[in-house]
């Protein structure tokens, strides 16, 4: 569809083998494809977001106040702690972005350009970071460093490092950890494609290592900037870390303020909407700066005739050093959180760290919680469905964006989809209530609020921005000529995508699906606000268990849910290896 809309093939394709019906269906899809796409995007993402943001200036529209137009919410939000929270979030977001991109560059260079050992394991670890919710990483570190935590049990507790961690430093670190995969996906492609020829040229002309870097870094600057912005957007919208660290850090954070504004009675939707607006605006400004910066000079040095670079062969000492660096990175990012979560789910209260004090009681207790099986089954089905929906729509958007800059609509789409990453889940979920619980919709016969459909739509809206970002790189690498070739040889549009492009994209699509599956399986804000009465998605069940019994059982359930996530990944990856055509697997081997 994309290729046809933007690269029309005027010559008549060869006679197709399909029946009249399929041909007509194809024409119908061609006729309605893009309009349906836009309507879905508007209904699923734009309307709910706009409703919530409009609330900031017109509460009366949604029965939330008496004024049709007011700026009082802005006045409230742009003072004191709320304003400080915005400032803190922006600063921390920028720092986390730089930290994550720096680590990602190191990772990308080691994994793409050297023969460091265990590359597959490290790649999978990067994906695992993506799947672990930020609150689990934060809780893991808390259990490790907090008073009475793991280090405390070993007699290593110190109030000073604990104080440093439970403040801006720890907060930035956790956001940076969560940002590593996004930064990596942004920079890995170009670092891999850069080849060693530019480095060699710089060295031949007498440049030292430093001046070589000065030559190479500007060439990958566009992807570095893209990585910075994605991590910045993800960081300022993160709530999991804020919930764990902000309350005791005396360190105001925008998302925590937003949560507080929505939690007390009466909920202050106006202030929450302003905070949401500011977060989205911050990303929009960052995007504009990026565009202006990139326009100022040309960075088009990566061409189609680049040769794949050969991997640098590390010496024995180099291998040891490289593996050491990777071990440190992944111990901080994954090791500590996993140890922390396991300890807090297995250690008996008031006991010290010793093998005798570990118990599986919390896990056994989960069997007694009624209705848990139903929750897992419901979330599982919804996550599978949302995986496919987000994959399809995300791929279409990513493809469209890869030909960026053609029309105003495309530029708008680009900004909207990226800025939506900065939209906290709570804002999106509340926006759904305002948009789809309007009495006017009921009078039109559209009674979808309180049904599973709205929950699915909200899940899709939540997943779409990240899925699109993950697919943006791979989709932009599919050349239009490849699809044209398919069409010239008699395939329909769908068929040429299926036979020419999908094999190349197989593993990327698989990972994007898994990412959406995992995020949906444990999604909380939309599940809480939009699940139909009588149904309970997994994340809500976890919160219920946390609220009813001791915290170890709640952590145990989080770990079980994560294991289901990881189990799914292993099963799907194995199925891919066993069932996918050989070509898909071989071509996909370089993606990770």
């Amino acid at each position, binding site marked *: 569809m994309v290729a046809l809309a933007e690269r029309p093939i005027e010559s008549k394709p060869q006679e197709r083998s399909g029946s009249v019906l399929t041909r007509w269906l194809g024409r119908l899809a061609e006729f309605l494809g893009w309009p349906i796409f836009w309507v879905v995007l508007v209904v699923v993402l734009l309307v709910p977001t706009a409703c919530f943001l409009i609330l900031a200036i017109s509460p009366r529209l949604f029965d939330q106040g008496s004024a049709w137009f007011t700026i009082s919410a802005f006045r409230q939000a742009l003072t004191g702690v709320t304003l400080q929270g915005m400032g803190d979030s922006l600063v921390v977001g920028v720092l986390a972005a730089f930290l994550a991109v720096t680590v990602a560059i190191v990772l990308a260079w080691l994994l793409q350009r050297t023969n460091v050992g265990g590359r597959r394991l490290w790649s999978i670890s990067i994906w695992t970071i993506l799947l672990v919710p930020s609150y689990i990483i934060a809780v893991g570190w808390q*259990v490790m460093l907090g008073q009475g935590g793991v280090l405390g049990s070993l007699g290593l507790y110190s109030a000073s490092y604990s104080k440093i961690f439970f403040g801006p430093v720890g907060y930035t670190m956790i956001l940076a950890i969560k940002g590593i995969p996004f930064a990596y996906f942004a920079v890995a492609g170009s670092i891999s494609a850069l080849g060693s020829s530019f480095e060699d040229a710089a060295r031949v002309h007498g440049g030292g290592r430093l001046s070589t870097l000065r030559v190479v870094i500007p060439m990958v600057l566009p992807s570095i900037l893209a990585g910075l912005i994605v991590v910045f957007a993800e960081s300022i919208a993160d709530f999991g870390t804020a919930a764990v660290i902000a309350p005791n850090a005396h360190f105001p954070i925008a998302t925590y303020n937003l949560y507080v504004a929505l939690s007390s009675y009466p909920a202050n939707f106006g202030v929450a909407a302003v905070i949401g607006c500011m977060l989205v605006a911050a990303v929009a400004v960052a995007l504009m700066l990026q565009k202006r910066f990139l326009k100022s000079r040309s960075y088009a040095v990566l061409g189609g005739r680049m040769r794949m670079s050969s991997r640098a062969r590390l010496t024995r000492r180099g291998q040891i050093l490289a593996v050491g660096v990777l071990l440190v990175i992944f111990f901080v990012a994954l090791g500590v959180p996993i140890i922390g979560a396991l300890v807090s789910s297995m250690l008996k209260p008031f006991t010290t760290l010793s093998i005798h004090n570990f118990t599986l009681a919390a896990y056994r207790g989960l069997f007694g919680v009624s209705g848990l099986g139903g929750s897992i089954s419901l979330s599982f089905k919804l996550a599978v469905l949302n995986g496919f929906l987000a994959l399809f729509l995300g791929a279409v958007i990513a493809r469209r964006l890869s030909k960026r800059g053609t029309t105003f609509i495309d530029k708008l789409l680009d900004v909207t989809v990226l800025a939506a990453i900065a939209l906290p889940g709570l804002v999106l979920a509340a926006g759904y209530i305002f948009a789809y619980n309007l009495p006017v919709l009921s009078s039109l016969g559209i009674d*979808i609020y309180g049904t599973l459909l709205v929950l699915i739509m909200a899940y899709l809206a939540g997943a779409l921005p990240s899925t699109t970002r993950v697919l943006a790189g791979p989709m932009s690498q599919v050349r239009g000529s490849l699809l044209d070739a398919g069409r010239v040889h008699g395939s329909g549009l769908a068929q040429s995508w299926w036979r020419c492009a999908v094999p190349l994209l197989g593993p990327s699509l698989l990972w994007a699906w898994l990412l959406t599956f995992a995020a949906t399986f444990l999604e909380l804000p939309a599940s809480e606000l939009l699940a139909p009465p009588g149904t309970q998605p997994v994340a809500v069940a976890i919160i219920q268990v946390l609220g009813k019994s001791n915290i170890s059982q709640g952590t145990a359930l989080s770990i079980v849910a994560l294991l289901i996530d990881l189990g799914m990944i292993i099963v799907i990856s194995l199925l891919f290896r066993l069932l996918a055509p050989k070509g898909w697997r071989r071509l996909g081997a370089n993606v990770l």
Partner: protein
Amino acid sequence: MKRPRLYRTLQIALALTGAAGVLAACGSSSASSSKTSSSKTPVVPLVVYGAEGYAPAVAKGFQQATGIPTEMVNHSTGTLLAKISAEAENPQWGVLWTDGSDAYAALDQQHYLLRGFEPTTGTLTSLGKSLVPADQSYIPTGITTAAAFVYNSKVVKSPPASWSSLLTPQWKGAIGMNNPAISGPTYTAVASIMSQQGGVAKGEAYFKKLAANGLHVYATNKVTLNALLTGAIKVAMVQNSAGIGFAMTSPNLKVAYPNKSAILPGVLGIDGKASKTEIAEAKRFADFVYSAKGQALMLSGDPHGDSLFYPIVKGTKAHSEVPNLKAIPTDYPNPIVWGSREASINAWFTSNIVQ
């Protein structure tokens, strides 16, 4: 290839019509499947928004006893109230059942609640009667207290006994509580402390001193109690039922009551804007809660949490772990006065104490 404008208009019109049709079809099919009605007495599903741990068990018992389909939406008080506020134009709930009367007083002032109804299936104790508002806009169902002092008896030999003692150096950095802006019941505790100090201004001064003495603020009861378990704090100021529940599984934990601790009623409200049928069902639900069967389900539904309440319906006995309220010095801040201050006090608390 440039398409003619008519072509594009036709495309968009068709897509929009299709989308509206699909949404309407999805909506009406789910509505027709969920809102079945019999020809004799109309029945609609009764939607119960409940934060009480025993609410699902009671709802299930109610459905079995009456045949009325009862759908639970079981979340924290804050989430449920946010949902109710957002659904203002088109309420989706029939019954709301949470702790603390302040929010109900505020809901009543905004004309959300059905007035003039109290169940007749049980007789209230005199304490219970004192909690019924003059306009009968909400229904008290039981009592817990907020806040109680929960402590590890191995570490703390003599717990604090008054609010002023928390300001002494002995308790520096040792006290933890919930953020009232996130944990609904904690607001009642904060209101009571402020009222005992002599008003909002003096109350704010008290909390500033408490913060200066190293107060820790967590999200909810369980998070605060977990900080106690890991040794991050020595005394947790939480709802007494949560403390008693924890003490049942961790015998070292003890619960002490300050002078004075706020009465925190479990409260049930009926949506005044619901359909006549749903209001009638909600009234039957409230009657069921006051009945012997309903009381028994409240006592058994959440044995380590909310079921550890102090009953106010005559003939119902509290669990043996729950102390007699007569032995505890209590306070009941006027919900009409303090309910309307909730948003501003919570915002102040978050700005000045938490952050």
